[in-house]
């Protein structure tokens, strides 16, 4: 594919060409469809492709009206689009068509975006590899034997493989940033409350955020500007003004203080460690200063996360019972009891990881265990929040690896949930603390797999993250590399 292929363009590049009529929305969609046809059988980034619906949207699209006019954006299979299937890659939601638009979808439509349903994911966002999907695993465009990360693996792989211009994903413990890092693209988990969750099928309500996965930082700022802002339908969305994130990118980064937490090198892949060290010298060259910071409780983050996230998930997933929508397994020719129907539906509808998390969450909320697990988890969460408050009082951004290793191989961790959970060790604390976190590409492993660095800032300071990320991107070439 030549560099001028519309599918390979960023949002900002594409907007310029659409506005000058150098390219039409139809041409963009046709180019994407051609690539999908070629690549999706190998990558499996989309749960389904409906060329006619895409062409209809392209035909109806204005090339000028709106900040995303004529820009095709793919949407993770857990964000509701009116009239489209929304299944969270789960059998239990087979056939479920959302009767309403998520707030982010409404905002994309308002800005003229063309929507590409539906990017593959781990079932109900439970996973870090996009292997827990009823549609089968998604593969990493840089190495087909590797996972794209997860749970927004479909979204990340679609952007990396140029079968979408940009994507929306959701991040509960790293589900945007880790696949962005694995696929060599940019991913942002906004501050909790920055983007409306209305229409995002809930995994863990106090941790979930929708965010952009994009080819560069400018696109990330661009997409965030569209989706951010308070929503009357989401009581947890914050009444904080939305700045022009794109305009803020050009602000200087000289004098920015970068916090470097003391991390035990143990468990971090040496190549990841080296890439981060190299990135630090880049930041220093850009005039940033570095400050050592401590995050004393970060070691408890994974344990805390798996208590709070599973507790909320067990509650949020209780509604999938076969009574009103989705899959129902009544068995016995409808002669069984209500309890039979619940048990069969949930046993056959949920995959192994979903069942594991529902059981864990039910357990930690049970009478007699609540104080020992959930309550204690909430207390540790407060400590982790304070760690970030303290650290971010001494610096502007905290720098961490996004993931402890580059992409791992398919099947490598699927039978070892603990190992899988540990791949979120650096991303989870941002969700627990509610702070924004950005992953940008910062190198490749010797095997050619992308590595990402992560920047975290104080709540609602996305503009600082994006500014620092943009300066780094301008100083490096990592984001320009594309998979074969």
């Amino acid at each position, binding site marked *: 594919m030549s560099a001028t292929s519309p599918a390979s363009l960023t949002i900002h590049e594409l907007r310029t060409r659409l506005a000058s009529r150098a390219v039409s929305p139809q041409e963009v969609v046709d180019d994407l469809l051609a690539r999908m046809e070629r690549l999706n059988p190998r990558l499996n980034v989309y749960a389904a492709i409906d060329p006619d619906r895409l062409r209809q949207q392209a035909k109806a699209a204005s090339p000028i009206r709106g900040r995303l006019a004529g820009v095709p954006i793919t949407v993770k299979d857990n964000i509701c689009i009116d009239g489209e299937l929304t299944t969270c890659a789960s059998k239990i939601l087979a056939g479920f068509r959302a009767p309403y638009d998520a707030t982010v979808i409404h905002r994309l439509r308002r800005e003229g975006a063309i929507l590409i349903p539906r990017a593959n994911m781990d079932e109900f966002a439970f996973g870090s590899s996009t292997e827990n999907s009823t549609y089968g695993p998604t593969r990493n465009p840089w190495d087909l034997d590797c996972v794209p990360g997860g749970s927004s693996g479909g979204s990340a792989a679609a952007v990396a493989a140029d079968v979408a211009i940009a994507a929306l994903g959701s991040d509960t413990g790293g589900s945007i940033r880790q696949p962005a890092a694995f696929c060599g693209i940019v991913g942002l988990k906004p501050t909790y409350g920055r983007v409306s969750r209305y229409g995002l099928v809930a995994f863990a309500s106090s941790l979930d955020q929708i965010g952009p996965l994009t080819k560069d930082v400018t696109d990330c700022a661009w997409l965030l500007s569209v989706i951010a802002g308070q929503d009357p*339908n989401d009581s947890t969305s914050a009444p904080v003004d939305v700045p022009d994130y794109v305009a803020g990118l050009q602000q200087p980064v000289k004098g920015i203080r970068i916090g470097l937490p003391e991390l035990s090198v143990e468990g971090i892949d040496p190549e990841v460690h080296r890439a981060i060290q190299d990135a630090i010298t880049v930041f220093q060259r850009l005039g940033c200063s570095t400050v050592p910071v401590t995050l004393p409780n970060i070691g408890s983050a994974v344990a805390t996360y798996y208590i709070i996230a599973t507790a909320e998930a067990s509650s949020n997933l209780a509604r999938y019972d076969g009574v009103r929508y989705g899959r129902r397994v009544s068995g016995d020719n409808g002669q069984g009891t209500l309890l039979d129907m619940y048990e069969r539906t949930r046993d056959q509808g949920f995959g192994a990881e979903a069942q594991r998390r529902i059981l864990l969450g039910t357990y930690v909320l049970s009478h007699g265990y609540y104080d020992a697990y959930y309550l204690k988890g909430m207390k540790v969460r407060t400590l982790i929040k304070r760690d970030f408050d303290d650290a971010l009082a001494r610096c502007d951004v905290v720098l961490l690896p996004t993931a402890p290793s580059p992409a791992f191989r398919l099947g490598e961790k699927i039978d070892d949930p603990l190992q899988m959970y540990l791949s979120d060790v650096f991303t989870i604390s941002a969700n627990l603390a509610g702070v924004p976190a950005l992953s940008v590409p910062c190198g490749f492993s010797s095997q050619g797999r992308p590595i990402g660095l992560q920047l975290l800032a104080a709540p609602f300071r996305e503009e600082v993250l994006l500014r620092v990320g943009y300066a780094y991107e301008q100083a490096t070439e990592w984001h320009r590399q594309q998979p074969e």
Partner: protein
Amino acid sequence: MTSVMSYEPVIGLEVHLQLKTTTKLFCGCSTKFGAPPNGQTCPVCLGLPGVLPVLNARAFDWGIRVALAFNCQLASVMKFDRKQYFYPDLPKNYQISQYDQPLAQHGHLEVVVEGQTTRTRIRRIHLEEDAGKLLHDASQHESFVDFNRAGVPLLEIVTEPDLRSAETAYQYLIELKSIIEYLDVSTCNMEEGSLRCDTNISLRSQGTETLGVKVEVKNLNSFRAVKLALEHEQHRQATALARGERIAQETRLWDARALRTESMRSKEEAADYRYFPEPDLVPFMITPEQVEQVRGQLPELPAQRRARFQQQYQLCAYDANVLTQSRALAHLFEEAVRAGTPAKPVANWLMGEFLAYVKDKSLEPAAVKLDPVWLKDLVELVQRGRLSGPMAKTVFTQMLDRGVPPQQVVGERGLEQISDPAHLERLADEVLQANQKSIEDYRRGKTSALLHLMGQAMRLSKGTANPQQLSALLKRKLEQGQVNAPQ
């Protein structure tokens, strides 16, 4: 063996009140009763994937209003929790409710029972969402769910186990309903389910403090049912205890036909609702200013009005109590008095004929169209002698049935009393002429003949003749022998 009489009942009440907000607690759907099944639903109250609740500010305000009327302490933070259990009428399989930090606690309510004022402590008042309704189709072996009710705001008002008789429980409920009606936040209609009441009762030996085994009683569809069920349960438990039996901790259902309770389920394994804080609703502060603002808007409550009525209108405690039970009734009374009618006859009309009418038609006082001025007019018609007592009652009923002023009823039906002497004279003569035998009887000393003649005359006048005048006239004519020949 202990005698049945030596046990004291310990009773607690739990009332669920549907607030009559126009929209549901967490979405914009209508709460109107009686819509076609699932006609008032949306993704939020159906619990579809991805939806989020948004608190109805009015329901919250009304919750504060009720809490203040029950003399409660408001929480400083408004926080919701999820109560989790699987049931097909519960769309999310959890109910958004309040657990460890209810909206209000530590309140009390005073009621007068047999002249004694008793105070019932209110343990807690909290806000939660209602569930849907299951409809079973016996012929098809299928069940259906109507989610119109799902998400309707409920206020749960729980007492401490302070009530010591079925009658006190009954009076508590009457006072509760009266307060809620004054606050104008619920229709309190038990048939439509906008007021639901569960109760629990245990017995203990008189003079002891230890609580006995508690039995919950449900399926109570009227205040009377609550009273009967408690009386029954008190007797049942006392009899069992007197026999040396143990009371099982259980939930029992009231059978309104058989007039007895029946065991529904035992409470041995308590349900684990796995409560945890609702992460979709951010806890927020309830500020003292907010509370004071609501307090400033509270209307005069029944107890205050009762005291005022006694003082201002010189009513006895009983009359003041009856007149203030319903806000509509109290309003009618005050407006009629304000229009210039003496208080006592207005009170008599309202407490007698009006309440009988309302009871007969199974109506709420507020549902009757009655202009207070009509009441004043009616009282005046009687006082001026233009209507007899029995006629006034007929006019009153007509007035309420048709919603028209008394003058109109009187005019249309020719009910006005005849006091014109010439008219009455003609009537008396006619009757005397036709009843020669009665005249002779009377003159022989049989005074009951006069009653016979009166009856004839009243019948002839279709009841419109002024009875005092007519009787005097007849008597005079009989005694003076002034019986004119018919004309």
